[in-house]
């Protein structure tokens, strides 16, 4: 390899490192719902969902014939959206079989959001159980509910549960719009 090629390689490497320092694009001009309107829609719809209860009927492919059930409740409360800071905060409480599993405040900085997806809770539950070493477990969830997953860097995810897939999709679209208003991008109205 000649020195010239080495310099090209070093320059390319430095270029890659510098690419991460590029500031986000400027906020686009409003053509759809404003950030305030979008965040109010988000807060209203998520707060409306309130407390969701469901039962997971679990089977284990490594132990044919085994099935057991777990009763879950998940409740979002005090969801507040700060348009100035581009942040959503909420309290999340879950119970499994009557015992508290989580009871904490969470924040989502919309500028850090990478992806927003909606999937059946059965699919989300399978992924969660697999992450904890139970890839052979599958859950049938009753009633059928849908999970909106907000993904950030380092595998950090926040979820919101909806009993209606259509509403989950609308909220996902609104959240996507809010993220775009916070960091710039597509302005298609939800």
């Amino acid at each position: 390899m000649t020195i010239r090629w080495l310099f090209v390689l070093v320059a390319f490497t430095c270029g890659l490192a510098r690419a991460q320092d590029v500031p986000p694009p400027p906020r686009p001009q409003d053509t759809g719902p404003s950030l305030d309107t979008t965040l109010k829609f988000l807060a209203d719809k998520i707060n409306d969902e309130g407390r969701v209860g469901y039962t997971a009927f679990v089977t284990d492919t490594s132990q044919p014939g085994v099935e057991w059930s777990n009763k879950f409740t998940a409740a979002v409360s005090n969801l507040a959206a700060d348009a100035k800071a581009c942040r959503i905060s909420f309290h999340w409480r879950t119970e499994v079989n009557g015992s508290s599993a989580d009871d904490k405040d969470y924040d989502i900085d919309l500028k850090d959001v990478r992806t927003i997806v909606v999937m059946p809770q059965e699919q989300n539950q399978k992924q969660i159980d697999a992450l904890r070493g139970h890839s052979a477990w599958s859950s049938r969830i009753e009633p059928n509910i849908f999970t909106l997953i907000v993904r950030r860097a380092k595998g950090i995810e926040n979820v919101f549960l909806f009993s209606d897939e259509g509403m989950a999709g609308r909220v996902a679209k609104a959240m996507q719009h809010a993220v775009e208003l916070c960091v710039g991008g597509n302005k298609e109205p939800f």
Partner: protein
Amino acid sequence: MEERARMIRTTTQRALQGMMALLAVAIAGSVLDGQNQTPPNVPSPKIELRDRLVGLWKGTSNYEGRFNDGAHQRYSTKESISCLISKGDGPEGLSARCNDSRQITNLDQVSGFRREFDGTFQIKLNGGGGFSGYADGAQKREDDGAWENLPPGGVITGRVSYQLNLDLNWGNGDSVGNVAMTKQ
């Protein structure tokens, strides 16, 4: 010139290796730092209990009493019990192969004998860490004599907490109760 080129080459290689290492740490970190408020499923209580029960358990019991015959002489018994519990029929089934070996001493005559029981039990799990089962075959012998089959009716019951508390009834009137067993 050649020496300088080699230095640049080495430095570049090290920089790339460092970047790869940082990338690997970042990827590992992304998994370790992951969070999602979805609560995971909890294991079936019965399956969890079955998994805790499987294994070799041992315990001892020492006690004194009087024989039931006419002289009602005093005796002391040193008893060693072992149960090998393994997964049995069905998703919640267990079987236990138990051995109960007793050294019985007549305290009034300073003589004694050995009595041994051996049997297999089919176990079903109950709620709250308890289980029970029936013998599907049990036998008894004394002083290394021939084994004799016991009548049906042997019963095993137990409860697991930090140890296993076991009751055994061999179906012929011989029994032992509340023996603290530890897993080997």
